């Protein structure tokens, strides 16, 4: 894990996240959101979880960001602008960040370096999914089916 790569990815991710939270135009904010998620996926690669990084890119940028863009286009009439951040929200967000950072710095057990671990192959993930995590996997499949049917029912035109 190189610290140069870490600093670059951190700057990219946080700048894009702040832009997504403060830009006025919806489309710009959505694209910044996609860039922030690319940064998070890069962190996953840096941490040695390549498979999860790829899943994040596929699911978030391939599906969620495109879905958000479609929704913006479908609700275009008042989707033009939104005012930026207001002071109350900014103050509370800074306070939450301060509290979290204080807690992290006050905890000595998290100031550790990375141990050397065996590479996480897709084979190991697949074996874990099909043995110890087979019931959660089935439940997530059921949840996804139910959620997508629910989304379809919600947006279907009502018959009068």
């Amino acid at each position, binding site marked *: *894990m190189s610290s140069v790569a870490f600093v670059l990815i951190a700057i990219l991710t946080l700048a894009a996240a702040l832009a*997504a*939270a403060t830009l006025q135009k919806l489309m710009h904010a959505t694209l910044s959101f996609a860039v922030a998620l690319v940064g998070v996926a890069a*962190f*996953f690669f840096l941490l040695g979880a390549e498979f999860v990084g790829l899943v994040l890119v596929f699911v978030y940028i391939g599906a969620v960001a495109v879905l*958000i863009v479609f929704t*913006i286009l479908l*609700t275009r009439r008042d989707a033009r602008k939104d005012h930026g951040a207001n002071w109350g929200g900014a103050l509370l*967000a800074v306070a939450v960040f301060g509290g979290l950072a204080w807690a992290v710095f006050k905890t000595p057990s998290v100031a550790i370096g990375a141990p050397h671990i065996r590479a996480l192959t897709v084979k190991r993930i697949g074996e874990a999914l099909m043995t*110890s995590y087979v019931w959660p996997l089935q439940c997530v499949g059921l949840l996804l089916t139910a959620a997508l049917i629910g989304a379809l029912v919600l947006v279907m035109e009502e018959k009068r």
Partner: protein
Amino acid sequence: MTPTLQVFLIVSAALFSAGLLAVLSRRHAIFILIGIEMMLAAANLNFIAFWRFSPQSQPPTGVMIAIFSIAIAAAEAAVGLALVIAVYRHYRTTNVDHLDQLKG
């Protein structure tokens, strides 16, 4: 010098705060959903960081939790955006300040 667990947690906290800022200060429903997704991504970053910096386990629990959480976030985004479209059809607006019919 390689990054410690601490700096990953700080970055994740900053990402979470950016999502919270979007949720608290935006008036547009789609922006609020984007903020929620950013907070979920920050939580996933924490799961992966804790997995990487702890002694290795078989099965890799942190990675599994992150995968399931990504799947659930996708379902949440689909239902949330469907709700936004349904609300827009009904009220012709997605500004959450104007959706006050249930206000007592």
